[in-house]
């Protein structure tokens, strides 16, 4: 059978003009989008404008846009007229709009600087009163929204293309996403519902406007309900990154496919921790969210406050704390009650999964019938679901116990635990001196309540806690520290806000600069209620993720390591943060003062053996780079798509003369690549230009075919990057479609 073609069967796609129903649905989507974006902008970016006046101007733009795009013809002229009138309006009172733009820019830069570590500073050159600023900002923002309605209306009423609407509206939300601030969820849900409705109707709407409108009108409320349901089922204020995601992140990072944040930033490299030692990266010290998920269950013989120490960190770098590897319980000797004594015991149960990590209270003597030495750091050789600990209560006022370290221990303590990076020493000392002066000048009394043998060390710690409290605010939503900044210096000198990770890290270095050996410790702080379980006779409590905490241990010669609380009480919204602030060095393990929840990870039991707090900050940087790349790629794709439509139009246009002339112009564009129109094309182009007769379909096909052949020929003869450009600029394919 012959394969002679019948000729191209044209596409059945016939783009339809808008119908009353499609215009109605389009206006609804447009109004919802603009109103939600406006509300989002005002709520998140804090533009100093009223909602209603700007919305009215936006609605005016929607009305004009709808009328223009509903017309069967003269649309381009009317768009130009609208733009011209707006331009004239702008020129008429240019200063008003300049002030408005400056005010908006100032608001945005303030927002950006406040919520990210990219500092952009802008101040309006002219100071305006609040009312004036509000008026000019409203005028500017209203005009912007009215103008935005034109392309959005075009995309919704005429193109019925989801991607263009998405591209026009997403930029309003991007700064908030990148800054990781609290979002205006109601507005965001409406925007997402509009996007969903447009996306789901985008296949049908171009060819069946009324049908597309029906899809939009049905999808809009349904998707809004579904998105609202997602928000209710997975509330954002109880969100933590899922364990599988954290685990996957660890695994992926272990593959070393991506450069580390330090490599990217060119900063100092972090030394590898010793085997089995924890590492806490500061890049994970971003905004905190807790779900209240129980991590441990503690059943103790006595009620009261309890610190459960998990990991101990020794070396400080600008990017991370490097830990101390725990010893194995296998190496401990058996506990003999004849020689040792403990007054309290507790059974600690892992509620998530068996774990090798051992969380120990202070003054622990025994764990699982093994004798513990003072300050022992131990881990089980195999994961264990629960274990029993014997301990004595922590001394309120420590006194020497005659525990004299060996020479090597002493060397380690007084060298390693006094080490401060050289580049930081001056900064820390300067800060300490200045903070002391400010404290003295303020007339505020210095906290120095400790007495006894170690009053000096304890009062210094108390003083440093007081200085830190004066210097910084407790804030669980503290953004991440810039990768090129030192964590502690940035906290002390620039951000002035943080939570226990920030306060404890700064306190450790400040204590070291004052000659007191100190180390950073993480674990849990909890209070065991005084309600006894009648069945077991024990006092039981559950330790949740928000009980995670970081604090400081100082070394007292003759006593050992002693916990010091330096984090002020928070004003956060987690359940235990309304407890009274005690920013003191009171060594009693009062978990009420440790309410600032912070641990190396938000789900501390996810990877307790190696709580690598991987750098999400690094990935934010990837995101910052990825967005322009995606936008560029989308732009190139859009350009190619438009060129391709242009090419298809040449093959299907009823006016063959115009199509041939367009193809001839494309030949002109091809000349710079070395392409050339053939003699037949030249002749046909002349005929199309000057003859009164219409060219035949065959003549048009001839010209288009020659153009395609020329592009194909050039593609085969040029280097690969030019080939790619030709592919981008002249999407003629193999010619089958256009013919």
């Amino acid at each position: 059978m012959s394969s002679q073609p019948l000729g191209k069967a044209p596409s059945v796609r016939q783009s339809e003009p808008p119908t009353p129903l499609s215009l109605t649905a389009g206006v609804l989507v447009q109004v919802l989008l603009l109103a939600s974006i406006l509300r989002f902008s005002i709520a998140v970016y804090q533009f100093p404008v009223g909602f209603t006046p700007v919305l009215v101007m936006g609605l005016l733009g929607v009305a004009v846009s709808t009328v223009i795009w509903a017309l069967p013809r003269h649309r381009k002229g009317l768009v130009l007229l609208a733009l011209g009138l707006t331009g004239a309006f702008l020129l008429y009172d240019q200063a008003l709009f300049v002030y408005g733009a400056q005010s908006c820019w100032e608001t945005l830069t303030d927002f950006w600087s406040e919520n990210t570590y990219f500092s952009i500073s802008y101040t309006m050159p002219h100071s305006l009163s609040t009312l004036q600023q509000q008026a000019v900002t409203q005028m500017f923002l209203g005009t912007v929204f009215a103008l935005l309605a034109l392309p959005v209306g075009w995309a919704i009423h005429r193109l019925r293309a989801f991607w263009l609407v998405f591209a026009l509206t997403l930029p309003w939300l991007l700064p908030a996403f990148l800054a990781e601030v609290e979002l205006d969820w109601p507005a965001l849900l409406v925007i997402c519902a509009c996007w969903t409705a447009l996306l789901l109707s985008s296949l049908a709407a171009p060819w069946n406007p009324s049908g597309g409108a029906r899809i939009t009108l049905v999808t809009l409320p349904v998707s809004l309900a579904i998105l609202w349901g997602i928000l209710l089922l997975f509330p954002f204020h109880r969100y933590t990154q899922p364990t599988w995601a954290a685990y996957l992140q660890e695994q992926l990072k272990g593959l070393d496919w991506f450069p580390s944040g330090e490599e990217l930033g060119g900063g100092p490299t972090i030394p590898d921790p010793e085997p089995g030692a924890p590492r806490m990266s500061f890049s994970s010290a971003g905004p905190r969210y807790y779900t209240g998920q129980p991590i441990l269950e503690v059943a103790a013989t006595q009620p009261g406050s309890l610190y459960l120490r998990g990991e101990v960190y020794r070396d400080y770098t600008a990017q991370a704390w490097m830990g101390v590897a725990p010893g194995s319980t296998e190496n401990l000797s058996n506990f003999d009650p004849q020689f040792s004594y403990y007054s309290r015991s507790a059974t600690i149960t892992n509620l998530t999964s068996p774990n090798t990590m051992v969380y120990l209270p202070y003054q622990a003597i025994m764990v699982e019938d093994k004798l513990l030495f003072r300050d022992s750091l131990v881990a089980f050789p195999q994961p264990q679901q629960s274990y029993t600990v014997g301990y004595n209560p922590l001394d309120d006022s420590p006194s020497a116990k005659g525990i004299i370290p060996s020479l090597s221990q002493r060397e380690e303590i007084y060298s390693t635990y006094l080490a401060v990076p050289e580049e930081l020493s001056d900064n820390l000392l300067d800060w300490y001196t200045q903070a002391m002066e400010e404290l003295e000048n303020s007339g505020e009394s210095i906290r120095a309540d400790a007495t006894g043998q170690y009053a000096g060390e304890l009062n210094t710690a108390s003083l440093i806690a007081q200085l830190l409290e004066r210097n910084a605010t407790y804030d669980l939503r503290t953004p991440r520290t810039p990768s090129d900044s030192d964590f502690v210096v940035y906290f002390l000198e620039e951000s002035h806000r943080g939570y226990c990770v920030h306060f404890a890290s700064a306190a450790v270095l400040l204590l070291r600069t004052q000659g007191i050996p100190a180390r950073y410790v993480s674990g849990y702080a909890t209070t065991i209620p005084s309600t006894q379980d009648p069945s077991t006779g024990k006092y039981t409590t559950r330790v949740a993720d928000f009980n995670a905490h970081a604090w400081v241990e100082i070394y007292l010669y003759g006593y050992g390591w002693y916990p010091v609380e330096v984090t002020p009480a928070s004003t956060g919204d987690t359940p235990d943060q309304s407890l009274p602030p005690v920013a003191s060095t009171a060594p009693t393990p009062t978990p009420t003062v440790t309410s600032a929840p912070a641990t190396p990870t938000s789900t501390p039991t996810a990877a307790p053996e190696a709580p690598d707090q991987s750098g999400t900050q690094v990935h934010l940087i990837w995101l910052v780079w990825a967005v322009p790349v995606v936008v560029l790629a989308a732009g190139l794709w859009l350009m190619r798509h438009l060129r391709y439509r242009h090419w298809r139009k040449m093959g299907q246009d009823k006016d063959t003369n115009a199509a041939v002339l367009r193809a001839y112009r494309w030949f002109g564009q091809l000349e710079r690549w070395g392409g050339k129109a053939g003699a037949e094309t030249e002749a046909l182009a002349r005929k199309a230009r000057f003859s009164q007769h219409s060219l035949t379909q065959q003549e048009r096909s001839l010209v288009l075919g020659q153009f395609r052949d020329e592009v194909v020929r050039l593609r085969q003869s040029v280097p690969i990057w030019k080939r790619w450009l030709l592919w981008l600029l002249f999407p003629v394919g193999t010619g089958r479609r256009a013919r």
Partner: protein
Amino acid sequence: MLGRRIVYGVALLAALALQVFYDGYLAQFLLIGIIVLPLLSLALSLRGAVGMRLELTPSVSQLVLGESGQWQITAHTRSFLPVARLTMVLTLENRLTGARQRQRLNASGLSTGMVRTLPMDASHCGQLTCQLHRVRALDLLGLFAFPVSVPAPAHALVLPQPAPPQDLPPLPPMPAGDHGNWRGTPDLENYDLREYRPGDPLRSIHWKLSSKHDSLVVREPVKNGLPQAAVTVDLFGDGDRLDQVLGRLWTISLHLLGREVPHTILWLDRDQTQQQETVASQGQLLAAMAYLLSCPAPTQPPTVPLDLSHLGPAPRVHVTLGEEDAP
């Protein structure tokens, strides 16, 4: 559909990557949203896609070469929402020339009763057949495809344009005692009776019987079973040649009918098998032409001669390009 699946896959992977590498709530919201989106799309489009039915019809069943006609695809769905997109494979075939085209086709936004049209290719004579295969209805996102029952194929006839009479050579003389000469006296002994039809000559009216039946009855001479002429056709070549040959055949056949000469059209098909159709009226001419247009024509001149022995001494008209001769 593949492109949309790839885009969705990329979006899903991006959301997963965001969930892994970014610890904010937005990552989870996006991931859940992207997972739920196809389910929503499926739920909204299921009813329309599953109950979809198509009809394929030609706008005209016959058209003359060069006229325009269309294939019409009519949709019927059970949902008030349109089916987002139909994908199908369209086969267009000209049975005479053997030209065949197969292409993928999309039709978007089809609601009940909505018609999408495709132009017919009436550039050459022949029986056109339009057939749809692998019809699939997509969901609103274009990720899932539901099979749709294939409609019956549609056919249309592209008839030749009659060649101008002046281009035709004079026809050979018909034998004496031409049965078809109604201008002479009818054969009163060998005839059939039938009702009068407009255009019948007055002489053929059987007045006696007409008065008995209160309606006009005419006498129609009975043919002896043998046509009075044989029209042989050189039916081979490309579309243009076939168009011209068929145009001449059409004109000659009409001319013979105009002279009341029943005749037999004979030709050889692609398998060198002799085909013939007897034509005694315009209706029969149309039927014969429909049959002829549905037989694949050879592209090369046939190597075997036509067998005319069963036709007796009937005069022969040979239709070919350039000259018509009577042997």
